[in-house]
């Protein structure tokens, strides 16, 4: 770079009308690593490049282990059986998959209406509305809320008052973690609806409710759905809030053939945690297989969310 400047100087003196670089033969420009400035430049570039490569090593190592150790155990049996007792062969984690889906779904039932309607309020609020500022602040605080504390709260509020660990308690804990993501992304999506559409609706005499239901929400739907998907993906992978709210169970989440939400419930994440600390090969294999299933689940939900986001841009 320094050489560029030096060599260009005489050309510039001779006249501005000419191309300032015309007198220079590019091949003759010296780009030598022996020059300290060039050397430092190249050195730092390669340091940053190798640190980026190094940062990707864990990712590939995790994926490698998941595929290497998890995939070989995957079979139909794994999806239909319940977890084995110690020293028992075979088994699976069908009940944990169902448990995860039920709890995440329940949490979404709680969170989606609250989050989206709060976002409607936020996006319609006047800029100087005090409440809107407080709500946004509360949502930001919840974004950084440690997931284990959501579990502590659900333990105090649900487990202690109902007297037992349950899927409901797990869902309450998860919903606390989902709420800020859904609210904040939905508000963003609603705000990205062009002002002229909003004004056109108002100009036709629509009330703000009609504007929200027939213009804002349908237009912002892909963005809102992206936020919901991201929140679902995060919730599906959470372990800490479920450890002592849903606890774990070796059985299906049902009693007498009926879905029972008020009993301890298995989840993929807690299964991985429990089986990782067990000295039995069968359980360890299942833990890796469950990890693979969990990662695939989270990735698929994430990808659906991103696909929706892309459609919104186009």
């Amino acid at each position, binding site marked *: 770079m320094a050489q560029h400047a030096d060599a260009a100087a005489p050309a510039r003196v001779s006249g501005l009308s000419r191309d300032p670089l015309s007198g220079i033969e590019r091949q003759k420009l010296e780009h030598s690593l022996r020059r300290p400035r060039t050397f430092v430049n190249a050195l730092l570039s390669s340091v940053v490049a190798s640190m980026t490569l190094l940062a990707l090593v864990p990712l590939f190592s995790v994926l490698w282990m998941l595929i290497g150790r998890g995939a070989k155990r995957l079979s139909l049996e794994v999806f239909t059986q319940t977890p084995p007792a110690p020293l028992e062969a075979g088994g699976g984690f069908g009940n944990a998959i169902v448990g995860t889906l039920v709890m995440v779904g329940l949490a979404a039932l709680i969170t989606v209406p609250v989050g989206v309607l709060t976002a409607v309020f936020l996006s*319609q609020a006047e800029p100087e509305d005090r409440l809107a500022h407080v709500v946004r602040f509360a949502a930001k605080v919840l974004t950084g809320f*440690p997931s*284990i504390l959501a579990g502590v709260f659900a333990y105090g509020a649900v487990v202690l008052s109902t007297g037992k660990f349950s899927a409901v308690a797990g869902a309450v804990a998860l919903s606390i973690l989902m709420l800020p993501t859904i609210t904040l992304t939905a508000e963003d999506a609603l705000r990205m609806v062009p002002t002229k559409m909003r004004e056109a609706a108002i100009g036709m005499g629509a*009330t703000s409710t009609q504007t929200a239901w027939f213009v804002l929400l349908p237009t912002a739907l892909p963005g809102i759905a992206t936020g919901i998907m991201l929140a679902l993906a995060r919730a599906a992978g959470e372990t*800490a809030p479920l450890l002592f709210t849903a606890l774990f169970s070796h059985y299906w989440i049902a009693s007498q053939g009926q879905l029972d939400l008020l009993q301890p419930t298995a989840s993929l*994440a807690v299964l991985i945690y429990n089986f990782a600390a067990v000295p039995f090969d069968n359980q360890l294999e299942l833990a890796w297989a469950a990890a693979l299933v969990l*990662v695939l689940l989270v990735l698929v939900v*994430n990808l659906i969310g991103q696909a929706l986001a892309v459609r919104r841009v186009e």
Partner: protein
Amino acid sequence: MPHAVAISSASARDPFALGHRGGLAKPPSALQRWLDRGFRWLCRGFGWASVFGVGYIVLEIAYKANPAMSRLGVGFLTGSTWDPNREQYAILPEIWGTLYTSALALIVGTLFGVSVALFLAEGFLGDALLSVIKRSSLRASPFWLRVPELAERVLRNLIELLAAIPSVVYGLWGIFVVIPLLREPCAWLHEQFGFLRLFSTPLSGPGVLPAVLVLSIMLLPTITALSRDALVAVPSKLRMAAYGMGATRWETIIAVNLPTAARGIFGAVVLAFGRALGETMALAMLVGNANRITLSLFSPANTLSALLANSFPEAGPQEVSVLMYAALVLLGITLAVNVLGSAILARAARATEGLN
């Protein structure tokens, strides 16, 4: 929105409005007006509900912690015994472990996170690929000229993928990959440099170092994404001015880009610190759950979140109250750090706004 109401009532009064003669547009009926008012109050109500929800969460934890707080007082924060049998509880080792592991993970995570952010934001990969392609015979085809951009996007997505992997999977990976990998180098370090406090104990499985390494991998995507935002927000005229004065790329980065983005990067680091303090699974699985205050990287330790995760499932009523107290301490620490981080990021965003 008083706006809409004002307009529709004006049209109702206007004799020339079509709505008045039952034409194209009608003023809202009484039912619609009630629905409108009701829906607006509903939305506002949900706004209030989420604020009260946050307040309720904090108060619920504080309320359940109250018996322990009045019994144990401040001594809970300064003592170091945790013995449910003798009903002695104190969490200084856990507070120390939380801060120590988070700070170490933050150092590693920031080092790598900011490097990756620079690599992504300054287009190193794209430029390198482009110069290779331009020199080769591939430059004629339009597909190959799009490859650099594509490669950058893939790299960005790979880094984001790091954030998508659940923490319990990282914990599992830490147990089966990181700890076995660290055993030999750590044993060597302990033998050669055992006189240093950092290496004063041997690594016997779970410990501070594996936990810190895995934690830093989990922090990296946060730091990278937010730092990259800050670096991309540096106005390109500043960069161009530096290039125009003959500065090399790295002289520009060090003297212009990094200082301009410094506040945003700092905010990112503080937010990542908040995340590290609250992270549970990787620590519960890797830190070793030993109730001791240690500087050694290879010794097992404990953190507040790991204590909660391990003790809650089997806790009796009295211990639950004590654990709620510990949860309240963790809440206080993370809340303070998070509010600080958000404030710094908000100020950083305002500072670069003025430059554009």
